[in-house]
Each structure stands twice: as structure tokens, then as C-alpha cells.
């Protein structure tokens, strides 16, 4: 098992390194001079200023050297100068062009909001989706089953942002059911935290749960046709237990794979949800950085953190797998 994890971590490290190289290459070898947006930020950009910034940022060095410097910053920190000299401590992801803060510090500042949103929302869609899917599979072919499938198709055919805006307009603004929808850190008290996030959680969770319901239903219908389900029934196991224990355990495995990836994408920033409910998380941060003038260090950081999260989520899913399915347990 340990060897397996080590092997997975090594390959994960490789993936992240490659991603960082690609990101680096894309931005720093792109058609524009990366110093250009920085130069544009404070009013007039003269050619002299651009040349100075280019020199200061080390953009005249070879790409390999730049990457090496960037990598060094990640592990031991470095000094960055454009105009003033900034101390960027390890792990250094650069200095934001717009706020002049350390990117790492900003990331750590935004991350809890996104994490809170992702955990709550994903729990809702996982639980609701799996439950509905299981129930639908149990009564498959009936009116209830068809109704659920139709409902879920309708919900998923409405664009998510429409759903979110409608929820915000009516539930929050108009009817004042959730008057205060924004992120409060946990340090403000768990009540405030949960209350502020309740509507985003529900909107995110219920919208996504339809896909999970359909997927779980499909898996369950397939599993319910397996021989071992017939065996369980034939030995007298109650129907409810057959479904929620014997069948669900087998059907849940592929659902978990999807869940792991979805969760990773949530963590990498749910732009729409954060924008609409005004949650200051990774998604908003990344979108802001993309607006001209582009805040290169922040964009690079969001892509990198996204890659890291997805890779980690994959590893966790694989480890979970081996706990659920003894056949993939590695000796």
C-alpha cells in the first residue's frame, strides 16, 4: 500500500511540474511581453519604462533561467523588483501586479471561502443525488422514476447561472428568505458561516444533484441486475437492505470517481456562484486577474493550484477505492 501511495505521489509530482512548465511557457513565451500589463497598470507606459520592467522581471534571461528562478522562489523565496523591491517568502508564487501583495498570501486568504462553498455544496449534491438516484432505481419503470428523471433533465437543461441568479433575486432580494448571502469566516462563528453560505450551498447542491441522481440511478439499475444481488435476495435479505447496503456499495464506486473530479473543480473556483453571491473566493480572484491588464502571477497561481488539487483529489479517490473494493487493494 505504501509503495503504491509513493508511486502515485511521484507521478502526481510529475504532473504538477509539467503543468507548471506549460503555464510558464504559455504566459512567458506568449506573443505579448509579460511586462506590458504591469507597465499598463499605472497610467502611461513609456517604452523606457517597459524596457526597465522587462529587465527587472528578468524577462531578458533564457526561459530556463526564468523557470529556475521561479522554481527557487517556490522553495526558498526570492526578491522581486518592479519599481520597489518586494520580499516574496517561500512558497513564492510571485507578487500580484494589481495589489502588490504576495500571491501566496492572497491565495491563502481566498481559499477558505471556496473550500467552505465546495464542501457544503458537494455534500448536498452527493447526498441528495445518490439518494434520489437510488430511490429511482428501486422503483424503476414507475411514474415516480420517470417523473424524477424528467425533473432532473429539466433542471440540468436550465443554464446554471440562470438558476443561480433567479435564486438570488427571489430567495435573497425579493422574498428575503436568505437576506445575507455572503461568506463569513469560521472565526465569526459557525452560525454566521453556515447561514451566509446556505443559499449558495443549496443552489449549487440542488443544481448539481440532478446529474448525480441520473448517474447513480444508471449505476444502481446495472448493479441491481447483478447475480450477487439476486443471491442476497434469495437468502432472505430485506429489500431495503439489499438496495442500500449490497447494491449501493457496489454502485457508488464510479460515482465517487466523478465526485472526486467535480470536487476538485469546485475547489479550483466556482466562478458563477462566487460572482453571483459575492463570495470572495478563488474563482472571483482568478476572473479578476484575467481582466486586462492581466495579473500574470495570479493567473499562473490559479492554474497551478487547480492542477495540484485535481491531482490530489485523484489520489484520494484511488485510495478510497481500495477501501471500498477489496479487489483493488494492493498487497
Amino acid at each position, binding site marked *: 500500500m505504501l*509503495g*503504491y501511495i*509513493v*508511486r502515485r505521489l*511521484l507521478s502526481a509530482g510529475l504532473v504538477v511540474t509539467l503543468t507548471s512548465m506549460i503555464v510558464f511557457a504559455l504566459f512567458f513565451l506568449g506573443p505579448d511581453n509579460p511586462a506590458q500589463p504591469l507597465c499598463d497598470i499605472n497610467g502611461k507606459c513609456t517604452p523606457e519604462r517597459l524596457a526597465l520592467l522587462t529587465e527587472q522581471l528578468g524577462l531578458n534571461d533564457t526561459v530556463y533561467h526564468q523557470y529556475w528562478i521561479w522554481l527557487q522562489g517556490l522553495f526558498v523565496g526570492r526578491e522581486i523588483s518592479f519599481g520597489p523591491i518586494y520580499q516574496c517568502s517561500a512558497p513564492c508564487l510571485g507578487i500580484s501586479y494589481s495589489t502588490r501583495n504576495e500571491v501566496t498570501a492572497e491565495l491563502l486568504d481566498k481559499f477558505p471561502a471556496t473550500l467552505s462553498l465546495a464542501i457544503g455544496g458537494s455534500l448536498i449534491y452527493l447526498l441528495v443525488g445518490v439518494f434520489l438516484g437510488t430511490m429511482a432505481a428501486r422503483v424503476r419503470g414507475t411514474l415516480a422514476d420517470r417523473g424524477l428523471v424528467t425533473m432532473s433533465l429539466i433542471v440540468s437543461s436550465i443554464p446554471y447561472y440562470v438558476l443561480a441568479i433567479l435564486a438570488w433575486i427571489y430567495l435573497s432580494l425579493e422574498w428575503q428568505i436568505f437576506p445575507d448571502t455572503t461568506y463569513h469566516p469560521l472565526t465569526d462563528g459557525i452560525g454566521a458561516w453556515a447561514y451566509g453560505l446556505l443559499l449558495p450551498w443549496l443552489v449549487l447542491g440542488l443544481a448539481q444533484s440532478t446529474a448525480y441522481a441520473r448517474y447513480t440511478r444508471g449505476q444502481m439499475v446495472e448493479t441491481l441486475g447483478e447475480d450477487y444481488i439476486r443471491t442476497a435476495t434469495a437468502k432472505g435479505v430485506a429489500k431495503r437492505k439489499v438496495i442500500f447496503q449490497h447494491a449501493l456499495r457496489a454502485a457508488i464506486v464510479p460515482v465517487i470517481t466523478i465526485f472526486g473530479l467535480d470536487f476538485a473543480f469546485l475547489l479550483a473556483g466556482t466562478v458563477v456562484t462566487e460572482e453571483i453571491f459575492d463570495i470572495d473566493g478563488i474563482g472571483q480572484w482568478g476572473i479578476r486577474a484575467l481582466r486586462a491588464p492581466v495579473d500574470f502571477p495570479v493567473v499562473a497561481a490559479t492554474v497551478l493550484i487547480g492542477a495540484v488539487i485535481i491531482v490530489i483529489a485523484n489520489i484520494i479517490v484511488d485510495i478510497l477505492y481500495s477501501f471500498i473494493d477489496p479487489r483493488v487493494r*494492493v*498487497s
Partner: protein
Amino acid sequence: MTETQPHAASRIDWATAESILEVVNLKKYFPVKSSGVLRRTIAQVQAVDGVSFSVPRGGSLGLVGESGCGKSTTGRLITRLYEPTAGEIRFEGKDIAALSRKEMLPLRSEIQMIFQDPYSSLNPRHTVGTIVGTPLQVHKMVPEKKVLDRVRELLEVVGLNPEHYNRYPNEFSGGQRQRIGIARALALQPKLLVADEPVSALDVSIQAQVVNLLQDVQREFNIAFLFIAHDLAVVRHFCPEVAVMYLGKIVEVADRETLYSQPHHPYTQALLSAVPDVKQAAVGGRRDRIRLEGDVPSPVNPPSGCRFRTRCWKAQDICAKQEPPLLQIGPRHKVACHFAGQRGSTGNVPITLDVLGVNSHGDPVPGATRASNLEDPGYSPAFSDLETHKRRSEKLADR
């Protein structure tokens, strides 16, 4: 009975027949990787471990054994679906074991394979005409314009309606699909057909139709068969010569009369006694069955010496120390057992001492050497006579 023709293969004189296929000491080891960081190879699955046999032109050899004995792997090695680890596969005298993909290409048409599962071995998106016709086009067997005619001809040969060439596999029943598979194999006019469990997925009433078809095809086109199956009765019906495999090795090979009525290897005896027999049970109740205990050992770490010794009631010291060679004991009978003999025989002097150059405890005798011809495929006119051996060992016992 009088009007039925004897099966073509049984008319062959095996002593003089020319071999189309000779397999010598063929091996296939599959690596087992460690779960560590480096994934080193930590063991080998010895799926096929030194088998030798020959198939005469137009004849059929049956390969029987239980799951995991290596019979299907052997079939796949011969059609080169797997790369052999060692050994020779001589097809018409030419060793094809080490040929590259490109060098194999012209031979592909000569060695064809029929698979067990008629459901998964046909592409569901292709019509029967495409399935049977593609090999004709690839190997340029007939001019482009004649392909369809030839496909119809082939469908007729295997007993399908030739006008059904534009139908898809799912429109046919299991037996009919197996016929399509046979038509595809016949398209290239092969000289050797490797049939891997060709009827075991079919219903019993359909099995007979397909077995009869294979016999007709063999007679008509003079095709040699390597017939791989776990069903001892079907193999006996189809093949005049039968080899029994156990854990990657051939333990006994003989003409079917000898193998089925006087098996000399304990495993063959156990295997045959385990087959439920309708007629026997119908007229005289159950036969005296040899109960084999336990399971087949792992091919990763097979027992030393004789691989069957862990389940054998005859096993002695020598069985753990010396691997019994496949020794010819009759004009068309070879067996790999130190104590080979008919059921109930009680010889306790190993018959293999002279050829191996060891004493009865399995330890080497100084100065004695191992006979050199023990891995030859086929039969030789000279063989060890068990009767002589028996008389000699009785004399020894008297002294």
C-alpha cells in the same frame, strides 16, 4: 452407423504422417510485477512450461485440461497472439516462434483460429459479408470483384444462407455466429486451425451441429486441427490423438483409444473418472471415481519435480526431486510419470531411472547420463516397454 463415414483424421497413419506443426519445448512465462515504486518483476507465471507435440497434416490433436493448465495459452502461442518465452514452433518445418510481425504476415493466412465466444469475437458493427470478406481482401486471396461470390460460397459451406451476407451478427443465433467465425477462418484456406473451445459456449443440441460442421470442413479441405477444449467427450469425438495438460505441462499424450481406455498417468485417470457418463450411469450406476483433493497449485510457484505430486496418491521421494520426462511407452503413447501404469497397478520402481540416470530416490547415479531425445515431438519407432520394465523390477524384488 454403417452409412456414416469415419472421421477423416482417423484415416491418417500417424506413424508415417508428415507433421504440419511441431512444437518443441515451448514456454510462456508471464511476469508478475511488484507493487513497489519500481515495479520490478518479482515472479513468473509459468503458464506453459516446456510442451512438445506434433500435429500431422490434415490430422487433429486434442489438447485437454482444466482451467489454468495452459492449453489456451499454447493455442495463442501457436497463432502468435502471444510471444513465446522459449522453444520452437515449427510450421511446415520452419520455426515461426521468433518471426517478427512482418515475417509472420504471409503465414497468418495459413494458421487461423476459432474462438470460444461467438458473441464477442465478431464485430457487431460489421456485416457478415465484411467479416468474412475482409481477410480475403487483406490477403488478396481473390480479385476485388470476386470477393462477394467467395463470401457467399463460404457461407454456404458452413451451412448459412448465402444471401444473408448483408446481415449483422446480432441477427444470428449463437450456433450461427460460430458458423460465421468458422467461415471467416476458412476464408484464407488455412492449413492449420487452432480451435479454442469452439463449442463450449453453445447449447448442447447446437454443439453437435458445429462439431459435425468442423468434421466436414476438415475432411473437405484437409485442414489440420489443434482442438483445445475442456470437454473430454467432445475432444475424444473429434481428435484421434489427444494430449492432456496439467499446470503448464503435457502429462500424457496418446491415440484416443489408448488414452481413454488405458490412461497411464494418475491425473488422466482422475480426470476421466470425474466425467459424468450418461450411459454408464444409466445402465450400471456410478463409476468408481478418483477423488482429487484440493486445488491446482499456483503456476507462479509450481511444485518441484512432478507438478502433480501434491495431489497424487502414487507420489514418492523421486517425484519431488526429478521432473518426469514425457516418456514414450507405446507406439503412440507418451506419459510423464515416474510410476506410470494402468489404474490399480502397483509398480514401485520408477520407470524413468534409466533415461534420467538417477536411482529410485531421485538422486543422480555417478556416471549415468540423461537421455537426449526426451523433448522430441512426435513418436519414434523405439520406446520403453512397460512390460519389460515390470518383469525386471519383479526380478529385482525377488532378489
